[in-house]
């Protein structure tokens, strides 16, 4: 299972990162002409709702995904909230993947609306990765009525950043020759894994751009950022040898829920947890996942978040067992120290489909 680094002297890879433009919102505008040209947010409009996706019209007001709906409405009073229709998004996603498959077998979906493609081997005979990206985007527009943007480069890291460069409905090529300069000019927050907290730390350490990162030694980065420092060291030089993994496997199945009002009592917490089991278990069954670890996530009203997990010797085999495990984890935290704003329940340590199937059968008791 080790990833072979590319052999020295191997030809540069050609990687495309395809990213649908404002995916959920665009699907909604496509299907409801009344929404076209208007600021649309997909997500719950209720007090505790969060924007899952915002149309470009909404983005001009500063509305962003993952923003609390309340904030979004304040920024854009005319914002139209639409309930998400995941079934439809999933169907469109399948359509898009079918299009990718015409050009390469090496497809690594990251979510419903983005994927990495390795088109080094030009099986469709397009001549170049740029032409392939153009063809894919044209096919997506033709067959789904939606637009996509693409980043084309020699590794995943740069391809992903490049796809953002000419959004929406555009694409951007970063050749190996331009790669290092392109990365040097990037603000650190564009690097994978750099969130607000890390960005703050980097600012404190005098690192603002890719060039600043490149000026630091691997040891220095390791000392300041742990094992992740090694990734930063390479990324700052435009290096990233992660392969496109078509067989990317699911690691966990779960769901979470932010409550309308904070919960405190064990009874209401357990009821809420039941609701989440209700959502998660069908997903577990649908994905035929067999997992051994159940993780409970709790976010308190002060936004502090904790997780508690429990692993079992055998995969969780029934909804009742899954619910019971969640209940045990929940009760262990009761009485809760603060009101609870969000609960989540996840099944992980999934059996891999490739694992030898020496499975112990049950008596059915």
């Amino acid at each position, binding site marked *: 299972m080790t990833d072979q680094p590319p052999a020295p002297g191997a030809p540069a890879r050609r990687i495309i990162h395809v990213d649908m433009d404002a995916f959920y919102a665009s699907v909604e505008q496509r299907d409801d002409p009344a929404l076209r040209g208007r600021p649309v947010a997909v997500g719950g409009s209720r007090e505790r709702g969060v924007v899952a996706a915002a149309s470009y019209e909404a983005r001009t007001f500063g509305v962003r995904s993952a923003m609390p709906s309340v904030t979004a409405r304040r920024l854009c009073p005319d914002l139209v909230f639409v309930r998400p229709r995941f079934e439809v998004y999933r169907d469109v996603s399948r359509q898009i993947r079918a299009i990718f498959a015409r050009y390469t077998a090496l497809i690594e979906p990251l979510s419903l609306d983005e994927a990495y493609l390795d088109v080094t081997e030009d099986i469709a005979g397009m001549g170049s990765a740029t032409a392939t990206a153009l063809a894919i985007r044209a096919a997506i527009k033709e067959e789904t009525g939606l637009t996509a943007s693409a980043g084309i480069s020699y590794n995943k890291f740069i391809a992903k950043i490049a796809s953002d460069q000419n959004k929406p409905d555009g694409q951007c090529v970063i050749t190996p020759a331009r790669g290092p300069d392109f990365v040097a000019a990037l603000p650190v927050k564009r690097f994978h894994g750099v969130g607000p907290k890390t960005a703050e730390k980097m600012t404190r350490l005098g690192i603002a751009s890719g060039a600043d990162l490149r000026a630091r030694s691997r040891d220095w980065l390791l000392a300041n950022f742990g094992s992740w420092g090694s990734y930063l060291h390479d990324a700052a030089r435009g290096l990233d040898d992660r392969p496109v993994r078509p067989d990317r496997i699911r690691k966990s199945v779960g769901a979470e829920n932010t409550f309308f009002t904070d919960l405190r009592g064990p009874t209401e917490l357990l009821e809420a947890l039941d609701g989440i089991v209700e959502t998660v278990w069908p997903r577990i069954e649908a994905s035929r996942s067999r997992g051994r670890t159940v993780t409970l996530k709790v976010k308190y009203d002060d936004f502090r978040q904790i997780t508690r997990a429990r692993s079992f010797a055998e995969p969780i085999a029934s909804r009742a*067992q899954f619910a019971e*495990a969640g209940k045990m984890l929940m009760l262990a935290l009761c009485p809760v120290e603060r009101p609870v704003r969000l609960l989540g329940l996840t099944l992980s340590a999934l059996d891999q489909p490739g694992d030898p*199937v020496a*499975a*112990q059968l*049950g008596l059915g008791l």
Partner: protein
Amino acid sequence: MKATIERATLLKGLSHVQSVVERRNTIPILSNVLIEAAAGGGLKLMATDLDLQIVETVDAAVDTPGATTVSAHTLFDIVRKLPEGAQVQLTAAEGKMLVTGGRARFNLSTLPRDDFPVIAEGDLPTKFDLPAATLRQIVDKTRFAISTEETRYYLNGIYLHASEEGSDGPVLKAAATDGHRLARMTVAQPQGAAGMPGVIIPRKCVAELRKLLDEVDGSVEVSLSSTKIRFGLGQAILTSKLIDGTFPDYSRVIPTGNDKLLKIDPKSFMEGVDRVATIASEKTRAVKMTLDRDKIILSVTSPENGTAAEEVPGDYTSLGFDIGFNARYLMDILGQIEGDSVEVHLADAAAPTLIREGEKAPALYVLMPMRV
């Protein structure tokens, strides 16, 4: 309180008592043993984890009756290290207990005896006696199958129930299962057990009971209600809460129509399984059994380690086929077979397999295969 007691006597009593005490306790007094010196002589040692309680009476010369509680593990360790043959003197006064033996003196902190929790037994309407040897067998032949999965708490013990339907009259049945295998022991119903509620005896109680049974001859007094059970074992009384749950109707998973019979020597079978399982993956412990006319081949194929095979002699005349088992499960069962022949009743590679010494054998085992 002041009492004098022989080191060996105290050590034995404490060894029983201290194993009931959990190593880690959030309630301090649960780490302690209650020592009560009776006016007429004798010490009562008592420990509890709130679900299980043991009271042991030991001989001692009592000067001043009284009671106190001290850390059970500490006292046990002290007494263990005192010189052999020493007379141990326990003197409790003003929040301390003085322990002297040989030339050593320990002054231990105590907690008030009135704070010591006692399990209220309530009414225990069912009462019967079982020979210690019978009870030992019941435990030995079933306990290995007890589930450790806490989410299925109702399987975390031995299910004891009476049945009037035995072919030779009423019986008492004990069953344990973890959902993969089932062990059941059947004994003649003792006087007084008729009409008893089916009860699930928790794993920890079973473990403590088994230790105490080693030191008892004669019979054990069993008293129970639907929520508590008490075992009178000579000088020790073990009282436990029962698992509050419903044991599944296990009789429906005992196969009755398995038509392929293998008769085999349990010892060589077990040794063969043990040998080939050496290279089985730690996670699955899967062993494949290839049955052919009077020829049984045990084999293991491990992607990491390689392969292993061993032929074991056995009587088998039905259609040949392959079936997989968890080696550990198989060995747990075979380890309980005392005779020199065991019957393995098979149906197919995905159906429950019945293992027993013979039709009249008191113990019966059901094992689900593994897909290999």
